[in-house]
Each structure stands twice: as C-alpha cells, then as structure tokens.
C-alpha cells in the first residue's frame, strides 16, 4: 500500500520552540492519530502539511507530490478541519458553502446537504449562531463534501459532546472503508484514538517519540506497579517514566516482554493505555 503522507526530517524553528527531525509516514487507507500534550507540535505539523507555515528543513510529500511545489494538486485532494473553525460569522451555512465549493472540482452539493441533515445543521442558520460543537460539525461537513482522499483533522473532538464524538469517530471509520481514503487526526483525547486509529504517532517537545501501528504500541508498552525496593539503578534506567509513591511506584516501559521477564512474580504488569503513555512520557520522565 503506498503512503499517502511521508514526512522526512521535518524541522521548524520558532526560537522558543523547535520541531526537530520529525519523520513518519501514513499508508493509504488508514487512520493515524497524532497525539501529544498541548504545545508538543501537533498543530505545527498539520500547518506545515497545509503549507500555512514554511518549513526550515526536511520534506513533506502527499500523494507522492511535494506539498509546496504541487500545492494546488495536493490541496485539492485534502479535506481539513482546523482546531478553531474560522468562517465568516455573518453568513449562513448555505452562503458559506457558496464561498468554498467553487474551489473544489469534485464538490458534491448533494453530499454536503446530506451531511448537514445528518449533523442537524440548518442550512439557513447564521454561522455565528452555532455552538462550538456545531461549528466543528460544519467544518467537518465542508471537509468531507469534495470526496477528499486525505482528511486532516486538528483536534476535531475538543468541545464536542460524547455523543457526537462517537458519531464522528464512526464517520471517520466508515470513510476509510474503501481503503483509498486516509485520515490524520490530532488529539489529546487519547480514548478516541484507541477506538479508531490504525497508527499512532506520539510527539513531545517537537520530537517524535514513536510512530507505530496502534496494536503494536498497546502490546509493547506496559505499566509496572511494584514496591520501591525494586527501583535500583538498572531498573530506573529501564523505565521511560516513573511515578514514585511512599509504598511503591508505577512506571512505564516500552518493552513489556522484558518487564514480564524482569519482574515476574514481583510486580503487577498491565497494558499501558495511550493516556498512560502520554502521562508518563510528559510528566513522569524518570524523575517523578
């Protein structure tokens, strides 16, 4: 399966923040979750893909094309939802559609109005009268109405109620059923990704911590719970993050098999959730 997105050694320097040698790839027909704490660099990566920011180094290819040199060809096949949906607030949804649709040759009016009905969005309503959740739904309807081959969503579920979050995730899952469409989905609500993502890319402080298949991540990473007497120097180095308490510790490892061998019968070893990984990697950094 070819890669829909390939990022190699991507660099962006803001002075106080740097995206450093970011590399990952998303195969066609899959959903990739981009996770990381606030300020990790998720939105920066998405903006670099959309050429809203200028990269300082590295390459980004989408559908095998350079995202800057072939900007129009690339973007005409991308559907996007920004973390804050910016549209003209004084226009109705129908008028907003009229300002966007002409830019896409594959725009499907029927699909757009069907999505509005599905999302309970009245076409004649002013954009400014929508709630944040409804604005996000509208942005999603716009992103999906031109049969995009690659959908990029930046924190689309933040501010949405749990019911619509589930509906959105189901819609994204349905979207990739034809194995041609792909989704890159940034979020810090990791439970969403455990439901639908095929690949997880974890970014922290502008660096990629890992980019792997979700099942591989959930299989390899584990949380070890044991008494403090096990925390010798060697074990301390073994863990990626540790939370130490008075009577014991909880620690994250990226080698569950080795943890089972090393602590057999002496510790409780549980599969790590994405939230555990994010927590220990960002807060537990071997010193908690």
């Amino acid at each position, binding site marked *: 399966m070819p890669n829909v997105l390939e990022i190699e050694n991507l660099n962006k320097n803001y002075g106080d923040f740097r995206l450093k040698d970011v590399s990952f790839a998303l195969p066609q027909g899959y959903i990739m979750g981009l996770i990381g704490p606030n300020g990790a660099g998720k939105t920066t990566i998405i903006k670099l893909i*959309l050429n*809203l920011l200028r990269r300082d180094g590295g390459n980004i290819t989408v559908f095998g094309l350079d995202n800057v040199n072939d900007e129009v*060809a690339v973007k005409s096949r991308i559907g996007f939802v920004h973390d804050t949906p910016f549209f*003209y607030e004084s226009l109705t949804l129908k008028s907003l559609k009229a*300002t966007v649709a002409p830019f896409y040759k594959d725009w499907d009016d029927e699909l757009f109005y069907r999505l509005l009905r599905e999302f309970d969005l009245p076409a004649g309503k002013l954009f400014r009268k929508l709630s944040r959740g409804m604005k996000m739904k509208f942005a999603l309807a716009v992103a999906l109405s031109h049969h995009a081959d690659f959908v990029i969503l930046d924190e689309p579920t933040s501010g949405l109620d749990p019911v619509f979050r589930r509906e959105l995730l189901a819609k994204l899952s349905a979207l990739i059923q034809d194995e041609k469409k792909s989704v890159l989905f940034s979020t810090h609500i990791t439970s969403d990704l455990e439901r639908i993502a095929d690949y997880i890319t974890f970014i922290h402080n502008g660096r990629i911590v890992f980019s792997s298949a979700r099942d591989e991540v959930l299989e390899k990473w584990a949380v070890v719970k044991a008494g403090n007497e096990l925390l010798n120097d060697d074990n301390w180095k073994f863990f990626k993050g540790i939370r130490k308490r008075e009577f014991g510790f909880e620690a994250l490892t990226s080698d569950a098999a080795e943890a089972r061998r090393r602590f057999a019968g002496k510790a409780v070893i549980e599969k790590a959730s994405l939230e555990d990984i994010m927590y220990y990697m960002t807060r537990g950094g071997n010193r908690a």
Partner: protein
Amino acid sequence: MLKLWAKDFVVSRWLWLLILGADILYLRPPFSQELAFMISGIGLVLVWVFVTLFLEDRYKTEVFYASLPLKRSTIVLARYVLVGFLALVSAAWTFVHGYLLNSVVKLRFIRIDLRSLFSVEGIAGYFFFAAFLAALFFPFYFKLGLGLGALIFAVVCLALGSLFFVFQFLATEALHLTGPLSMPEFLKDPGLGILRAIGGIKASLGVPLFIGALIVFMAGMLFISIRLSIRVYEKREF
C-alpha cells in the same frame, strides 16, 4: 481568481446594497467640485476593499482560505485585479449617476459638471490615483496584515501628501512659479488644479506619448508592487 471575487462579493453583498440604495436615494453627497465627486467613487472602492479585508481579518478566515487549493500568488493577484475592476465599475457608475442627476432629475443644487472629468486628464488622473493607492497599500497589507498594514499605509500617505504640499508651497511661494500648480488656484479647487497639472504634462508630451507613458508607468508601478506583495505573502505564516 473569479472564485475569490465571488467569495468577496458574497461576503460583503450587504455593503453593495447599502451603497446602491444610498445612490438611488441621492444620499451620496452631491459634491459641487467634480473631482471630489469622482474621488468619492474611489472612496467607495477603498471602503469596499477595506470592509472585505476587515471581515477577513475579524473572522480570521485567511487561515481557512489559505488552506484551500489556491496559490498564494493567485490570492494576491485577485486583490489587485479586484481593485482594478471596482475602479472601472465605480468610474462608469459615477458617470451614469452624474448623467442621471443632470439630465433626468435636473435639480440645480445637485448639478454636477462632468465635462472635464470625462477627458483624457480626468480618466488618466482617476485610474492613476486608484492604481497608486493599490500599489502602495497591498505590499504593506500582505506583509503586516490589515491593522498594522493600514496604519503604515496611512502614515506613508500622510507623508507623501505633506511632501506634495511642501513642494507646492516651494514651487509657488519660494520660487514664484505660477501656472497649473499655483497654490491659490490649486486650493480654490484642488480637483481642477490636479486636472490642469495633468493637462500640462499631456500638452508637453502630446496625447499618444502621454497615454503611452502613463500606461508604462502604471504597469511598472503595479508590477513592482505585485511582485513585492507575492514575495511577502508567500513568506507569510498563519
């Protein structure tokens, strides 16, 4: 490019309706000075462009439209061409409107003499002024955004205006020059003063050379401005 225009018209259509309504009801001030009447046409173009950019800035929609399948250079060019188009429509509307006021309504107090405007000097001055403002404003706008861009533009306009009047003063008072640029005559009717100054250049060059030189000068000025705008806008980050 046409798609961007359509977008801008949809976004600010209420403003057009307002201007059209005001003109139909003759609420647009019936200026006695003909050039002021024409300049009010340029004013409307500026208001329209400013409102469009203001709405874009207020709702931060630039990020969204920059994410669409469009080259930055197309976005820049669309703005320049739009100003040109609006200047053309505004000039045509001003003549039609003036003609209707004079020949249909026939009210003496709003009678406008359009004869000297409907001349080579009048038309040349109008389009040069519109092109000059666009060429000056857009590089600042695309580099700095609306707020700071408009501020710098205003300061530069003020500085250029001051320089012009200093030059006028020196030419008329210190050097004792008279003729088309004489200060008292100019201040009596700046519109006619400018038209006479343009007329002076036209007379010295001859009509074909004057038009040719004007077109080359305006094209050069706009070309430099557009290149500069594209260059800074392509570097702009959202």
